[in-house]
């Protein structure tokens, strides 16, 4: 893992909006003045211009080429505890002023702040890219998809269908606040996905693999499309031999990498400050208290080079950072957005994120992971007499209020007498966040960050995130299976 920020000027979003749309500092100041024209304590503007391209290969043919531009500005006015929000896709002065006045209606009281002096933020760039995918020729991207298709079908004659897709995105954002903060960022994103269908007699199995992050096409030098394709094919073929999952409570070894979604669901969401401000999280009022086994140190880190969850600046204009959430089992603090940070009287942590200009920011994770311990992964497996080894997942979900979570496991194996044996299918892990983390009894030294494919949904808003962890033993967890 590389957590050293690459210092250097990111491409200038400020210049982009100024030259393309005439959105310069005087325009920003005017809109902020409109937003606060009826009072209110604070206002901010969030400009977005997002270009997306996607290619889909199926049955060895390019089924569809698609592209689009999403553009607009979201305008927020905060008056006391109340937030007014409006947006428009139209960058004309008239439309933007109208949106500002609409958002302003929330403010029935308060003083209009004095003149605003915009100070641009200097930011580190955590996602330097070499070959922007949005500028690459379609033929080059197609070649990647065809390579994946061939590799998947070559893996095993049972692979009868392959769907491969490549989506790339370039997102310019510009944030201006009534406190004079001005921040711009250019955020690349690449996502590659391969789905395979394997048929053996009457048995049909599908599996998906994928990866990516805030990369250009140089991503594929270290992650050849063939490798992702073979991974999907391997998982699909494996499932033919998978046995029914046991039902009941067992020790479970969580493999390094993707198992990090356990952190994301089991603790991550509960540590988002909005739930704690509203006192609806089971971590409310627990800062300073033990909430996990002393072996657990959990970090949310927006600065990992090119990771899917990394951001240079959050969507409220706060430079993003690395925040320790749990240190040796003790809760250190929450992930904050502006509103929550003011409520708790702490500095914003750079976690205010949003799906698009149509959405209000709220505390969200970036890359959330568990730091490595010192156990050897093979010793961790060896420590289990009868249990499960879980490697890949199709998703996870948590109920923030009571901490109950589930993970749907797409690749898992039985552990019998310290050895990994038969693959199992249809496995769900279900547990409770704080209870499960208190049962972490071994932590491996083999930390791995998941290859970027996770998207987190909260309140109807999706944002890209990263997860990671080393191999971990949880002494008991309920396994939802079918075999009694």
């Amino acid at each position, binding site marked *: 893992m590389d957590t050293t920020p690459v210092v250097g000027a990111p491409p200038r979003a400020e210049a982009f909006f100024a030259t393309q749309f005439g959105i310069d500092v005087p325009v920003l100041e005017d809109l902020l003045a409109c937003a606060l024209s009826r009072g209110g304590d604070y206002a901010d503007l969030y400009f977005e211009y997002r270009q997306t391209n996607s290619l889909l290969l199926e049955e060895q043919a*390019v089924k569809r080429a698609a592209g689009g531009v999403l553009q607009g500005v979201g305008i927020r006015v905060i008056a006391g505890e109340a937030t007014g929000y409006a947006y428009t*896709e139209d960058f004309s002065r008239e439309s933007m002023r109208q949106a500002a006045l609409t958002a302003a209606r929330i403010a029935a009281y308060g003083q209009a702040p004095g003149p605003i002096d915009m100070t641009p933020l200097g930011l580190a760039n955590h996602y330097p890219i070499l070959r922007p995918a949005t500028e690459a020729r379609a033929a080059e991207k197609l070649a990647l998809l065809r390579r994946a298709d061939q590799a998947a079908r070559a893996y095993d004659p049972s692979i009868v269908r392959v769907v491969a897709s490549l989506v790339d995105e370039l997102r310019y954002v510009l944030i201006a606040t009534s406190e004079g903060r001005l921040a711009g960022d250019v955020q690349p994103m690449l996502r590659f996905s391969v789905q395979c269908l394997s048929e053996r007699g009457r048995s049909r199995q599908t599996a998906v693999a994928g990866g990516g992050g805030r990369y250009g096409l140089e991503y594929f030098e270290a992650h050849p499309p063939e490798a992702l394709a073979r991974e999907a094919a391997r998982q699909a073929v494996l499932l033919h031999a998978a046995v029914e999952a046991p039902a009941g409570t067992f020790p479970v070894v969580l493999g390094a990498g993707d198992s990090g979604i356990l952190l994301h669901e089991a603790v991550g969401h509960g540590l988002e400050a909005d739930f704690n401000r509203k006192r609806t999280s089971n971590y409310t009022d627990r800062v300073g208290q033990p909430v996990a086994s002393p072996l657990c140190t959990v970090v949310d880190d927006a600065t990992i080079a090119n990771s899917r969850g990394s951001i240079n600046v959050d969507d409220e204009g706060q430079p993003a950072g690395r925040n320790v959430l749990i240190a040796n089992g003790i809760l250190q603090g929450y992930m904050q957005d502006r509103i929550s940070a003011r409520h708790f009287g702490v500095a914003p942590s750079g976690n205010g994120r949003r799906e698009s200009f149509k959405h209000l920011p709220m505390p969200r994770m970036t890359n959330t992971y568990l730091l490595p311990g010192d156990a050897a992964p093979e010793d961790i497996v060896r420590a289990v007499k009868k249990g499960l080894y879980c490697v890949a997942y199709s998703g996870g979900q948590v109920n923030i209020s009571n901490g109950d979570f589930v993970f749907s496991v797409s690749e898992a194996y039985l552990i019998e007498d310290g050895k990994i044996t038969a693959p199992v299918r249809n496995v769900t892990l279900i547990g409770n966040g704080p209870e499960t983390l208190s049962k972490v009894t071994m932590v491996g030294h083999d930390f791995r960050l998941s290859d970027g494919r996770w998207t987190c949904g909260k309140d109807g808003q999706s944002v890209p995130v990263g997860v990671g962890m080393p191999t971990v033993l949880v002494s008991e967890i309920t396994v939802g299976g079918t075999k009694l």
Partner: protein
Amino acid sequence: MGEQVARRAPSVVPQEAELLELAEHVVRLARRGGADAADVLLDSGTEFSVTVRRGQVEKLLEASSRGLGLRVFRGGRCALAYTSDLAPAALAAFVERTLDLAAVADPDPCAGLPEPAAWAPPQPTDLAIDDPQLPQVTAEQKIELARRCEEAAFAFDPRVTNSDGATFSSEYGVRVLVNSAGFAGAYRASGCSLVMEAVVDDAAGKKRNAHWYTAARAFQDLEPPEAVGRRAAERALRQLGARKVATQTVPVVWDPLAGRAFLAHLARAMTGDALYRRATFLLDQEGREVASPLVTLIDDATLRGGLRSRPFDGEGATSRRNEVVVQGVFRGFLLDTYSARKTGRQTTANAVRGVGSAPSPGTTNFYLAAGPSRPEEIIASVDRGLYVTDTMGFGWNLTTGDFSQGAAGLWIERGEFAYPVSEINISGNLKAMLRDIDMVGNDLEFRSATAAPTFRIARLVVSGL
């Protein structure tokens, strides 16, 4: 705040005629630029939402937006693009770029617009999906409804100590679809909802939460806010003290909210793309008995006032009522034009489409038809088993039918609710589960576009202690 805020009604959405003209213009540009065929989808509308939490307005959003999606076919090659910049010069460049994009795709004999026969039947009228009163409802009225809803939850029981807020949302818009083969259609649609999430404190710092809601096309069809608030409170309170149970195989009764989530997942195995991708456990099952005779599944885009009713689908095909499963027999998949051609069938007018996405087959108003049993009878029929109110997770393998989901609800002993349960899991295979549906309730109501009455599955594995 709230009372002091002066407001006007949301800005009126543009007239259909104006949008139709714009869409026709873009189709003409695409044809002139070299497309063999093209279609344009235009959505224009307003949205509003307000959340009241602990008596105060917490957030209020108001916006109007529009977007245009263009699909072109050129020598069997398909490209798709979207934009929100509708200025004439920008549109011309947009059409040109989309046409260039088509060169990237491979020719596909199944790609193309629907046959004109798909839009030949007269469109259903009187769908009651456009409430002209909704845009007249003021923000104050909406705030007041949310406030009353939350108040009712707090007033229901002193143990309701917190709330994640009551949210009123509404939307109103016009959808226009034009294609180069002679279809041009437009309709207006409205929608509104009120959702309450109640939170109660349990032992050891745990909280219990539950939501309840009402949703309708017409403002006057919403249920009283107090009823919504009380029901949310009641559902949260009945989870107090929830515990795990031992691992065992028992009958499982699905309440309508859990049942609708079940149906929504199941429906994905009944769509044309799952069929042509051979990724459904229902492959080769058309005309066969796949469920108990108590099971009839309908997808009806013409349901009066239905939350997903519409006169035509995302490709212009005239809306209809499709029988998917009738008394246990699988009648056929839900199809759009592409999946229909791909599998030698006809579209069922189930193309779902947004301006930024390709059409794909999906459900409209999808429901399990009501059965003969009263819900109390179904619960009373269980000697020992689970009444599931919530499910969680992604444990749906539609290719194999394997099913495994986290669950919470109430434990049934001797036909009565004994205590709440959570942090358990239910597992089975959909092939067996559909056959094991042995009781279906008479309590079907359309709280959401996908709806189920109470039903019982004779046996599922519950994993717990």
